[in-house]
């Protein structure tokens, strides 16, 4: 397009010069953080963060640490994929952690075995009748839990015009209550072998990566993705252009709820037990991953790739603190500071773009 090398007003324009993608900045931040931990480790601990230092293992990198990092972010990462879509439309979802709680309880109760070590299962909720069900049953029941919760979120936000913050806060409290009510506060354990297989080994990572790829394509190549960005960018314009904004919002929150439910299934399967307190604060971790990954809280900007990188940064920082043998208290505090810093950075970035 050489004939368009002059913009309006006759300004010269270089078509090769493009804006640096946000994801590249996030990636550089990830590299920087790893390097900092590596340096601190070498100087103060005499150990390496990234590389293998044990003689009895023959690998270049410290594979154990790396796999722990991705494993521990993958479950919250699944939630963050949904939260990313919500934030891109200009909303927020505070209910995902509680949806994890209630879904884990409900799904687990449909996944119990009748016999444990030759004894009848003491935690049975439904009695013998609903035990040893095929794995599809707890999986689907769990997903439907999240789907319904997400649908209610979306319907409240779209049709009653309650701010997303309030609607999902209500769901956060309600779903947590439901999780406790379900088994009168007792944990539910002893899932079938099939169910426990879902979250074993590196399965959570595979599920996270597959879903990340899927939703990357959905957000980039489909009408759904395009409309998410359009609504987050300018909701009034989206309405005027004829986009069914309300229906779209319901769909977005429903998908987010369903992803939280899937995370719950994976988590309860991995832990072989479900408790009402499962997933507490996951919503904030998921939001943090998205925000660190460059998803703007004011909507319209960010990508799934950004969130995946944000999740990795999140995991590296947690793991780095363990590596430096710092107390868990510091981790919590630093987590909080990082979230605020990421949002401040986004605000600052936005202000620098505002024109007169």
């Amino acid at each position: 397009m050489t004939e368009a090398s002059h913009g309006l007003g006759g300004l010269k324009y270089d078509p090769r010069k493009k804006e640096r993608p946000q994801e590249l900045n996030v990636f550089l931040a990830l590299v920087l953080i790893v390097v900092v931990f590596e340096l601190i480790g070498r100087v103060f601990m005499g150990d390496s963060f990234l590389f293998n230092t044990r003689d009895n293992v023959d690998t270049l990198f410290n594979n154990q640490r790396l796999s722990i990092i991705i494993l521990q972010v993958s479950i919250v990462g699944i939630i963050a994929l949904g939260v990313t879509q919500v934030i891109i439309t200009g909303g927020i979802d505070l209910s995902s952690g509680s949806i994890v709680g209630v879904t884990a309880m409900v799904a687990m109760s449909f996944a119990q075995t009748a016999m444990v070590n030759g004894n009848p299962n003491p935690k049975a909720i439904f009695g013998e009748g609903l035990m040893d069900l095929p794995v599809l049953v707890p999986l689907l029941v769990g997903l439907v839990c999240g789907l319904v919760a997400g649908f209610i979120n979306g319907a409240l936000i779209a049709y009653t015009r309650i701010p997303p913050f309030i609607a999902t806060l209500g769901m956060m409290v309600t779903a947590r209550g439901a999780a406790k009510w379900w088994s009168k506060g007792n944990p539910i354990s002893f899932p079938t072998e099939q169910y426990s297989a879902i979250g074993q080994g590196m399965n959570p990572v595979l599920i996270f990566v597959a879903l990340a790829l899927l939703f990357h394509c959905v957000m980039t190549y489909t009408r759904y993705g395009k409309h998410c960005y359009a609504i987050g960018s300018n909701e009034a314009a989206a309405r005027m252009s004829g986009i069914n904004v309300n229906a779209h919002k319901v769909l977005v929150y429903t998908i987010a709820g369903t992803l939280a439910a899937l995370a719950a299934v994976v988590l309860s399967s991995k832990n072989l037990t479900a408790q009402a307190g499962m997933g507490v604060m996951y919503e904030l971790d998921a939001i943090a991953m998205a925000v660190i990954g460059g998803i703007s809280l004011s909507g319209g900007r960010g990508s799934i790739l950004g969130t995946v990188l944000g999740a990795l940064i999140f995991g590296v920082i947690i793991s780095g603190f363990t590596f430096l043998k710092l107390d868990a208290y510091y981790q919590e505090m630093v987590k909080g500071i990082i979230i605020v810093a990421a949002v401040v950075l986004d605000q600052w970035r936005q202000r620098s773009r505002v024109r007169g």
Partner: protein
Amino acid sequence: MDDIVLETRGLTKRYGGVHALEDADFILRKGEHVAVVGDNGAGKSTFVRQITAVEQKSAGQILLDGREVNFAGPLEAREAGIETVFQTLALADDLDVPSNLFLGRELFRFRLGPFSILDRKQMRERTLEALKTTAVKIPNVDNPIRNMSGGQRQCVAIARTAAFASKLVIMDEPTAALGVQETAQVENIIRGLKDRGVPLILISHNLRQVFDLVDRIVVFRRGRIVASLRKDETDGNDIVSYITGVKGVAEVA
């Protein structure tokens, strides 16, 4: 009387106690270009928002091709062939030019409900075509439009309208943010619509432009239509006296 494209009868809009538009009787004939003028807050944009169903009218009728229409939303108005450049432009800043041009009516390679796969290549090509026919110059259509100047953004909105126009085009102050050259371009686009026989409602504060472009001028004052005058039976001073209320209620065509 079957050459009437758009007619409103007693069109009324109230925002709570504010009577933004009252009893508007308006007629637009085939191929006719009509200007709507009036002071700030006279109700011009409100009039547009009722016709395009961005808002729901409080009372009155809207007839398209002689048949009464009750659009539930802007998409229905667009599907009926009414294209609009809103005063607020209605663009999504974070999307690129093709996405904005096709916002709400994307082209698909593969239909799958909400998850239909976009045909990005064809949308991009047709965008370049549309921009070419409208002589609008955009340096790089693949950039988000947030980085473009006010005039370029306005050109995108106008290109969108001109490219899809079928039955009727409405432009709410389309040259408000434009420089001299760009204003001339937009005026050429409007003349192109005239040649194609596409009727137009043009809202403008620029009387020179109005007299240059349209056949008839409708004056709004305090939510009411106070005059509807053929261009050759009036002049600038006459129009101004209607706008400012020096002249009162006049014959309405």
